[in-house]
């Protein structure tokens, strides 16, 4: 289990409460769940890295507990009660200087310090859909939700928000435009914040500019946008909606650069790799997909049997070079460990990479991605 968890480069949380690790190099997916007792109230709502070295994954569950999972050891190391089910599900989790920041749907944002029992508590308003931490300034968090505009908070001065977004002007019928912020992203190397809404709009705000209204607004599709992610290359943003449409939008003009095909169900989690042009998406159709952002082709598709809620990518290189990649999939079935870990069935993956091709550059991946889906998959079925 330790070796398995160390090889996993993508972590996915499901509705059944199981934390799944996917290792693209080994072409396997593993379930890491505690004590074989699954229940729906352990549904994973948020996943976040516990530390910058990515050795710990923080799992926020629907019943209010936050569990820490160590990727080195492959087990859950601790569990913390951070609220209860009455406050709603977790909408965001962050680590700041050793203290844990949690935000629930009811708007209660709490900072839990290590060892102390006192917490800083901020009420950010009801109906929160998302809380995100600024990766460059770790003490800033942004929250937004249904009829809850984007607010940026500095946790060192928790009494008032640093920036509260103003709603756009009334529309052409002079009606108030409703607000529903579904996901937030901080644009690196600048102050700007991009949000996607349930009314299929994508908005960019600039707190350093005097205007509190969005600097840029773009629309995509007709369905609520549920997830957003910023790729390593500047100037674009990837959004997903409830219909399973993933699109790459341009941040300069607000136009659609392209769509990523393949998803059949609503997108719940989206994350771009910090350095490579890859994006991982998971959703209600029970598949984890990795697309390449350069040619918008599907690189990997993994069937993970439950509906997936959130995805977390590690910053290390996801795919190792061709030598240890093979089309064959092996069965790994192990007995449950004494501490209650059970490694369960891996999944057959639709592999696209070529066995013989030593060039593990994007070109190889591209050319194989085109041929890949047409190949007959070799599946060792039990």
């Amino acid at each position: 289990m330790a070796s398995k968890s160390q090889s996993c480069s993508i972590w996915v949380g499901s509705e059944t409460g199981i934390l799944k690790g996917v290792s693209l190099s080994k072409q396997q997916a593993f379930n890491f769940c505690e004590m074989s007792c699954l229940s729906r109230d352990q549904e994973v709502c948020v996943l976040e890295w516990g530390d910058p070295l990515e050795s710990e994954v923080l799992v926020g569950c629907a019943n209010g507990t936050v569990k820490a999972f160590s990727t080195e050891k492959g087990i859950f190391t601790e569990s913390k009660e951070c609220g209860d089910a009455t406050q709603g599900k977790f909408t965001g989790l962050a680590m700041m200087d050793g203290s844990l920041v949690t935000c629930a749907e009811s708007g209660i944002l709490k900072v839990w310090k290590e060892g102390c029992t006192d917490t800083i508590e901020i009420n950010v308003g009801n109906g929160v859909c998302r809380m995100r931490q600024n990766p460059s300034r770790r003490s800033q968090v942004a929250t937004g939700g249904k009829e809850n505009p984007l607010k940026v908070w500095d946790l060192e001065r928790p009494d008032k928000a640093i920036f509260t977004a103003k709603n756009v002007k009334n529309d052409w019928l002079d009606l108030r435009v409703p607000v529903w912020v579904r996901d937030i992203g901080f644009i690196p190397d600048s102050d700007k914040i991009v949000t996607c809404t349930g009314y299929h709009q994508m908005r960019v705000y600039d707190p350093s500019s005097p205007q509190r209204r969005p600097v840029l607004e773009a629309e995509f599709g007709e369905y609520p946008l549920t997830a957003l992610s910023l790729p390593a290359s500047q100037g674009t943003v990837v959004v997903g909606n409830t219909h399973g449409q993933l699109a790459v939008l341009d941040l300069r003009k607000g136009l659609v650069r392209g769509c990523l095909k393949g998803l059949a169900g609503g997108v719940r989690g989206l994350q771009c790799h910090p350095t490579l042009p890859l994006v991982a998406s998971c959703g209600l159709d029970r598949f984890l997909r990795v697309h390449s952002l350069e040619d918008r082709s599907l690189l990997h598709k993994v069937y993970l049997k439950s509906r997936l809620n959130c995805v977390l990518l590690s910053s290390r290189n996801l795919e190792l070079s061709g030598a240890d990649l093979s089309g064959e999939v092996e069965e790994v079935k192990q007995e449950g460990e004494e501490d209650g870990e059970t490694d369960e069935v891996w999944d057959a993956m639709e592999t696209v990479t070529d066995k013989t091709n030593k060039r593990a550059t994007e070109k190889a991946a591209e050319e194989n991605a085109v041929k890949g889906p047409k190949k007959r998959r070799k599946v060792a079925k039990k």
Partner: protein
Amino acid sequence: AKADSVEEEAAFPPNFSVSEIKNKQRRHFMFMKLKQEKRKRKLELKKKRKKEREALGDKAPPKEVPKTIENQRIYDETTVNPEDEEVAFDEGTDEFSSYFNRLTNPKVLITTSDRPRGRTVRFCEQLSTAVPDSHVYYRRGLALKRVIPQCISRGFTFLIVINEDRKVPNGMVLCHLPNGPTAHFKVSSVRLRKEMKRRGKDPTEHSPEVILNNFTTRLGHSIGRMFAALFPHDPQFIGRQVATFHNQRDFIFFRFHRYIFKNEKKVGIQELGPRFTLKLRSLQKGTFDSKYGEYEWVHKRHEMDSSRRKFHL
């Protein structure tokens, strides 16, 4: 020279095809002749092969199985393995668990789109005789989002809305009520009772048995459970009625029969009740909310229908 040419058999020049003859009658005649020749040759080949097979007797190679689209179906990785614990847990705690744990009984509300015309109205009535404990209500132009909370308060578990287009039913929204998934189907080939040949008398009030065929993938399982939850738990075998949902190539065929065992091996069946085919268009999590709801599965024609051998249910 003339004698020579007459002596040779009148032969067509090579590279000649029947379609080059300009005269329609002669062309037709030549084509018929060509087809007959082909058939004759095929029969001869068949006879020869049969003789060879009989001659070999036991050593004959096994008969080849003809390829069908169902045989050649691309293996779907979401096919449910019966021993899979995770899927079993998922199904055990999903929205239908209250039905399958016998905590609730189904109660179905059948309605249509606004101002239904003859065929649809009769279809709804016949459907309500096939599904026990179902009630048909006239849709007085009411919004579904307002109908649903009222249904929940009155204890309904299912809402069926038959959509009508040009006096013919063409769509069905099947919504599981407390908070359950909503499936949207395309309905085609609707046959009402009087259009069916050799049908039996009208269905009785007994609960029918339910047969769900060929729902193999995870999505298929969800839809199959949805259909199963429409009918009461315990079928009354006295009624000898059976409702079948047969999935083939992503089309779901609904049939309603009455059976009788003539002896231990022979069964006679009479078809009663309406007959229709369904094709799943989308499965949405939560009750009906086409704009803001999250979809678990949406049929995307250009991506999903590119291969003739790939099916999703």
